[in-house]
């Protein structure tokens, strides 16, 4: 036992905060939702419904239409028809609609934040301060590009692609919808969007905004459903472009399904990012970066810093401080303003996470969870640390997509790079050092699409995001994000 192990802080019997729940009086969720096709909410042809629930207590929030093949055909037809005029509209007029959608999201930000937390389980602090403002910011950002595309790609003629099929995940429902819809519209494409089956509500609320904004009918269509609905969309012959964010497994299926077609494809898939702490790092700030890296959104983040690589000389200090920090993380009701870690998105996901915790236990790894209380109802998982994780451990290799951190150590810069890159994924990484030269050296050698230095999980519409290897291809955000929705042709000179 080293000396630093003997004295510890206590966080159990002190000043406790009373519940501070965000009010839900001001929101309205319909009992049942149809599909948003050609500017109208319509009933599904199949009249099949599935429930969307509140993962923090299991209550049903609404019944959602399961779009069948006929519904998807209708949606794609509407998008195809709308493309004719939308793609030819004066770009500055297209921008006006996108700006209007951005402003309307801002106006209804509180409502969106509450619904996002109700439907998805994420803490209201995150949906209020991050998801919704960032979603609006993406619409604002791409609205600005709509009439400046020729400046984004000098020497090129820019042409929209056509009908974009966009399939988004459940971890950032509205934000992912914004990431997908905003650049597609700015470039003159039309859209059929399929939100995830566990979190369709904010996309359907976005449909209300789109309707109210006066966007021409059929430019954006939203169809709800599970994997089957998604596959109808992917296989539809009139779809010109597919943008998918989700698991690597499904990403591979889509790539197979689109082989030998002319469909353009971007995939944003899983990750197993290394968050690398050097001994000269600002340790206390690094601790925050580690916490934010893995426990942000319950770890349901494709770029989560799920592998912690700590230089051996500071491993004891970092471990001790991380454990203490876990004690003051508040796990519980997503709608409580003081909640740091909310509910796991679904029962299936909770089972998956728990099975990985069992794997860690079976491997005989040292595990740490805080003393914080977790609600008995609903899907919750305590923030979990595993120490001394070997590179060969499943916890270091596979994406868990939950609040579980695999902690490893390294001795040299080369070892850190080798371990960080030793994964089929390549979405993101974090580097913590006081030395700028070291940070730049690392960033050129790490095979990851996004690398943060002395921070983690920072997002901005101007910054491109995307992966290497099995984390996918294509970029979203920034100028790079425009390219994925355009056909670029050389200007005749």
């Amino acid at each position: 036992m080293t000396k630093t192990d003997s004295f510890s802080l206590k966080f159990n019997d002190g000043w406790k905060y009373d519940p501070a729940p965000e009010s839900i009086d001001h929101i309205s969720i319909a009992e049942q939702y149809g599909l948003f096709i050609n500017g109208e909410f319509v009933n599904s042809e199949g009249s099949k419904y599935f429930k969307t629930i509140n993962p923090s207590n299991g209550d049903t929030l609404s019944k959602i239409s399961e779009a069948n093949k006929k519904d998807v055909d209708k949606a794609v037809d509407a998008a195809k028809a709308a493309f004719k005029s939308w793609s030819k509209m004066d770009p500055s007029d297209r921008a006006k609609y996108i700006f209007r959608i951005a402003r309307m999201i801002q106006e209804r930000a509180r409502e969106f934040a509450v619904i996002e937390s109700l439907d998805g389980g994420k803490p209201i602090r995150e949906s209020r301060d991050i998801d919704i403002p960032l979603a609006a910011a993406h619409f604002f950002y791409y609205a600005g590009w709509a009439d400046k595309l020729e400046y984004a790609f000098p020497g090129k003629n820019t042409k929209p692609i056509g009908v974009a099929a966009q399939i988004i995940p459940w971890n950032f429902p509205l934000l992912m919808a914004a990431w997908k819809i905003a650049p597609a519209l700015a470039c003159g494409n039309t859209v059929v969007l399929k939100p995830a089956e566990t979190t369709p509500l904010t996309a359907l609320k976005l449909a209300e905004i789109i309707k109210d904004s006066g966007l021409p009918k059929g430019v954006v269509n939203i169809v709800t459903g599970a994997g089957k609905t998604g596959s109808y969309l992917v296989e539809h012959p009139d779809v010109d472009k597919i943008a998918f964010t989700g698991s690597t497994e499904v990403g591979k299926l889509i790539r197979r399904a689109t082989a030998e077609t002319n469909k353009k494809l971007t995939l944003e898939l899983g990750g197993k990012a290394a968050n690398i702490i050097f001994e000269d790092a600002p340790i206390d700030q690094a601790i925050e970066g580690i916490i934010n890296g893995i426990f942000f959104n319950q770890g349901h983040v494709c770029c989560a810093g799920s592998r912690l690589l700590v230089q051996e000389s500071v491993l004891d200090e970092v471990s001790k401080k991380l454990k203490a920090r876990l004690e003051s993380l508040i796990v519980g009701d997503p709608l409580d303003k003081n909640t740091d870690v909310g509910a796991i998105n679904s029962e299936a996901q909770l089972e998956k996470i728990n099975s990985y915790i069992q794997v860690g236990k079976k491997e005989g790894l040292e595990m740490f969870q805080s003393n914080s209380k977790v609600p008995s109802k609903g899907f919750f998982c305590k923030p979990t640390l595993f120490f001394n994780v070997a590179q060969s451990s499943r916890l270091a290799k596979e994406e868990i997509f939950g609040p579980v951190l695999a902690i490893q150590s390294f001795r040299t810069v080369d070892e850190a790079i080798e371990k960080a890159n030793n994964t089929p994924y390549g979405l993101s990484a974090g580097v913590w050092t006081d030395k700028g030269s070291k940070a730049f050296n690392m960033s050129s050698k790490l095979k990851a699409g996004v690398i943060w230095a002395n921070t983690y999980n920072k997002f901005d519409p101007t910054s491109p995001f995307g992966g290497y290897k099995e984390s996918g291809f294509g970029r979203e955000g920034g100028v790079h994000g425009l390219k994925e929705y355009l056909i670029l042709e050389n200007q005749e000179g």
Partner: protein
Amino acid sequence: MDFKNTPNIDQQGLIERANRFKSRSIKKEAKLSGLKLALSMIDLTTLEGKDTKEKVKQLCMKAVHPDLELNVPSVAAVCVYPSLVSTAKKALKGSGVKVASVATAFPSGQSDQKLKVEETKYAVNEGADEIDMVISRGKFLEGEYNYVFDEIAMIKEACGKARLKVILETGELGTPDQIRKASDIALYAGGDFIKTSTGKISQAATMPISLLMLEAIRDFYYKTGEMRAMKPAGGISDAKTALHYLVMLNETLGDQWMSNQWFRFGASRLANDLLMQLKKQQSGFYQSADYFSKD
């Protein structure tokens, strides 16, 4: 101890963390107990050239009974110049409220070490329970860390049983890295408290700087097992800010530090805002500032 190698601080990360404490929502019972705790942590302070015995006596009355109608605790201490210590001591007799005195050529610290020691002894002999010293910022910025260290140790010795608060005057030290270094020097030299500011220059206590000082106290505790106290001073004038500081203390150092033995607010205006909030919690209405004594 090599003070050239104190931990690195990333300023952006520090500010971001400090801001997170502000997003905690403190309601109902937690608010009530937080307001009372904050009141009990105040070092009610008057440090003016025009201070008189009568002024100090009035302040002492306020310190013991912040409000005669509300069921509220006394503040922690009254902080005065050395010449007024005996007045305060008499006025506070039997109340449990401590007498704190500034010393060591407060606020600049620009004097001879012997005189600083003498001044400290004088204040202690007059009855001071606590001494608020200032570090020699000039020497610190010259890189004379051992001089600063030795001086603190010297004053600590002169304090005898009195507890020593070491004012870093963080607004004059420049960067978070420097403030961390000064904090470590003060802690290892024997300071019982580390304190942000004199209140005499414009940049007084801020949450990020107080956070890094709390982290220095935590690291010192981890290394030695000894608890040390913290005192942000200056600029904390409303209840909301005080609650933010308590959240920061609660989540950085934990249960053991949540008392006026280990945390103080150096403030003169804060008490009345806390009282106003406490009265509002009791009655449901805000009362005019005229209902609270200005001492």
